[in-house]
């Protein structure tokens, strides 16, 4: 088995001390080590935001792209070389705000990759505006009278859109989170791991103690992750008790399994460029 240190990147994370993202990074490194996937066979794709700096902090190939566009880049990369382990990472603003359209379509596409969202319910990098998962009536820099819009429910959304592995972790529960990530990477299909990753600087509401008082593990209550209706019910549980763990898991053929070009084939990136089959196409023009 590989050592966690093999996945530690050359750059030291510049997150604020106490940021939830440290826990997410550690859990991901642990999950990869546990699965013994060589760093050079991993591609981590992110967007923009504090959490999207993660690819630079992990020893793996990385693509740190535009705000909200990690999923299409990751999808293209996975379809281009399905031999790679592809992991998209980012925050709630990136994935559930500007990129939410891609999120929904990526769920229903079921490409075999993992999406880790460091959900801190705030825009941290831009210094504290309301995000799509900010709870209603919370005052932020952009909503001094409290947010009017309802918070988006990423778990329910992923379930509705057809994701085949839907989990939520908490940065303060590192081993549990690493297990969820390991399951997500091992899962054949699109896996979402939404992570409560507190922003200690700009979110004074959803703090570590706030979560510690509320979260409980689905596994400890014998939740059946094959039951879609139950998963949906749990997705809406919020308040005094908030579930973390694996909500739902189902086996469905992946996009790569069903696409006629990829099915059982060599990755596109390894195919030769020179073609010998052009004459027949030319004949069709005549």
């Amino acid at each position, binding site marked *: 088995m590989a050592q966690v240190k093999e996945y530690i990147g050359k750059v030291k994370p510049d997150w604020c001390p106490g940021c939830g993202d440290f826990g997410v990074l550690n859990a991901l490194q642990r999950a990869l080590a546990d699965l013994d996937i060589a760093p050079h066979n991993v591609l981590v794709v992110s967007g923009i935001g504090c959490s999207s700096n993660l690819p630079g902090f992990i020893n793996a*190939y*990385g*693509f740190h792209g535009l705000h909200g566009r990690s999923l299409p880049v990751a*999808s*293209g990369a996975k379809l*281009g070389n399905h031999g790679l382990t592809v992991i998209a990472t980012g925050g709630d603003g990136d994935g559930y705000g500007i990129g939410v359209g891609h999120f929904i379509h990526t769920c229903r596409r079921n490409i075999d990759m993992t999406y880790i969202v460091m959900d801190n319910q705030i825009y941290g990098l831009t210094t504290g505006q309301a995000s799509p998962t900010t709870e209603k009536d919370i005052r932020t820099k952009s909503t001094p009278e409290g947010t009017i819009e309802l918070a988006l429910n990423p778990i329910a959304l992923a379930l509705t859109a057809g994701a085949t592995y839907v989990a939520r972790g908490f940065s303060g529960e590192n081993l549990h989170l690493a297990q969820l990530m390991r399951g997500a990477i091992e899962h054949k299909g699109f896996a979402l791991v939404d992570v409560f990753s507190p922003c200690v600087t700009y979110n004074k509401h959803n703090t570590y103690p706030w979560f510690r008082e509320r979260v409980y593990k689905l596994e400890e209550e014998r939740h059946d992750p094959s039951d879609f209706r139950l998963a949906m019910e749990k997705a809406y549980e919020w308040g005094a008790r908030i579930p973390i763990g694996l909500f739902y898991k189902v086996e469905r053929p992946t996009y790569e399994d069903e696409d006629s070009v990829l099915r059982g084939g060599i990755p596109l990136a390894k195919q030769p460029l020179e073609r010998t089959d*052009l004459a027949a*196409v030319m004949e069709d023009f005549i």
Partner: protein
Amino acid sequence: MAQMATEVTVWIGGAAGDGIASAGESFAKACSRCGYHIFAYNSYQSVIRGGHVCMHIRIGTHKVYTQGDELDYLVALNQDTLERYGKRVMPGGAVFYNTDKFQAKPEQIGKNVQLIGVPIMELAGNQLMQNTALMGALIQVLALDPAGIRSLIKERFEKKGDAIVQTNLNAFDKGMEFAKTKCQPGGIRIGSGDSKRRPLAGGNPLIGFGALAAGCRFYSAYPMTPASSLLHWLVRYGVKAGLLVKQCEDEIAALNMAIGAGHVGVRAMTGTSGGGFALMTEAIGEAAMTETPVVIVEVQRGGPSTGLPTKTEQGDFFQVFGASQGDFPKAILAPRTLTECYTMAIEAFNLSEKYQCPILILSDLYLAERLETFEGVQITNVPIERGEMVTQANGDHYRRFLDTPSGVSPRALPGTAGTIFTAATDEHDQHGIVISDVFTNPGIRAKMMEKRMRKISAMAKELKPPQLEGPADAELTLVGWGSTYQVLLETQEVLAKENLKVNILCLATLWPFPAEQVRKILEKCKMTLSVENNYSGQIVKLIRMETGIGIQHHLRKYDGEPFELHQVVERAREILKTKPKESTLVSVVSDEGVPADFSPIENPPIGAEAARQH
């Protein structure tokens, strides 16, 4: 006595949904298989009466460069078509129509034009056979070999079974027989073709074919007219050849997916029109900043905004040129012919990998959706140049964004051991480590900007230089770009017959702009006339920006239709004869008129200064 012409033009018009494109395509293909040159274009001349479509098919014993202006034979599938164009049919020609649908009167057509009413029900017993039977009559009157179209009927309906094939063949034969017994042979007949079997296609399939030949394995797109036929072509021909086609949720995803595929080493392309391209804008800079090879096709239609979805324009140059924030290397290629659609697609992939940046192909509806014969393209020994690749680690110091004299850094692909890096859209150093905020460093930033931008001059050196075509001492130089090329060539031919000498500077490489070469050419020109399918003269502005040289006279068209040959010929002739001292700007429209109750405001005449400003 029939004239044996070197060309003949057939228009097939009717309502959208009358199957004009399919009938027209079959007819065009049948003619091309007889060794004729073809140029066909679907003019959607007006929507005033709802979905009027007219396909112009020009057939020649020599290369025909445009859809032409004349009308020899009209197939009118509805009364509207007859009313619009009946009088334009040349003496010696004919009008074909279905007598079950409407009655045509001799006063609706010109003198010496045959009116051929075909009783479809009586002949074929089925109105669905209308187009096939009319084709039979047309082939007979034109005295063309029916073998070509008969074999096309078989190919087209093969999958539907023998009965359908037979029904269509019968209808075709009945149409021929009817014309043979009831009509005069056509007064305008074309001489024999050279029996060479030329390919017949449009610009979108040729870009697709070029991509396939270049080893493209990934095409992601969102449907948008007029780029959708590229998507359809690649689905049909690419997928079985191992090219993955991915329809996406929007154009933002389409380009980002192509970038993802390009990042792992797949030759990837996306295609769209102006509106979709607007959504791709941010990701173009992403490709440039992460130094990811990707090819983007923009097939222009009339703008602004959703504009004219089914009509042509050359109005997106500045959008494509200015797309995405900041300075970065890229190339913009504007194919002028079908052959260039193919060769420039290949060139685009090679440039994108050699210089690790986005390469843009700027086409338009007129080029994309025409049907034209061409002399074939080179399908063997297609040049494939991937640029410098690192396939195994060389020590522990791989720097993905190494500062080199050419600006190009040898590229490693994810999956390679020992060359791990992160590609970031934020500014980064040679290793790829982000230097955008915490570790910011003005010196490194400047170096990295210079490294990327250096790629432009290296790339510029290998692009095909622009050329002045025609007599060097011509009195007038026609200046254009992209799809207007062939109307300029034909203008040159027509005027040469009148002993009027013009030459042509038609640009295909728009960026990096070949400023030195264009300046040298233009400095020697006498009078200049720009011909652009847009309102503001976008390439005129580019030329002035890059060379300091202003074009003297301007011909513009922004009504959604391509230039008609006579419009360019007449303007050029006028300038040659009157030699205006002041700069002139003339806008032309296709002759459909505007309703009487439309605003009578006319554009004020434009003086030299105003023309320069335009």
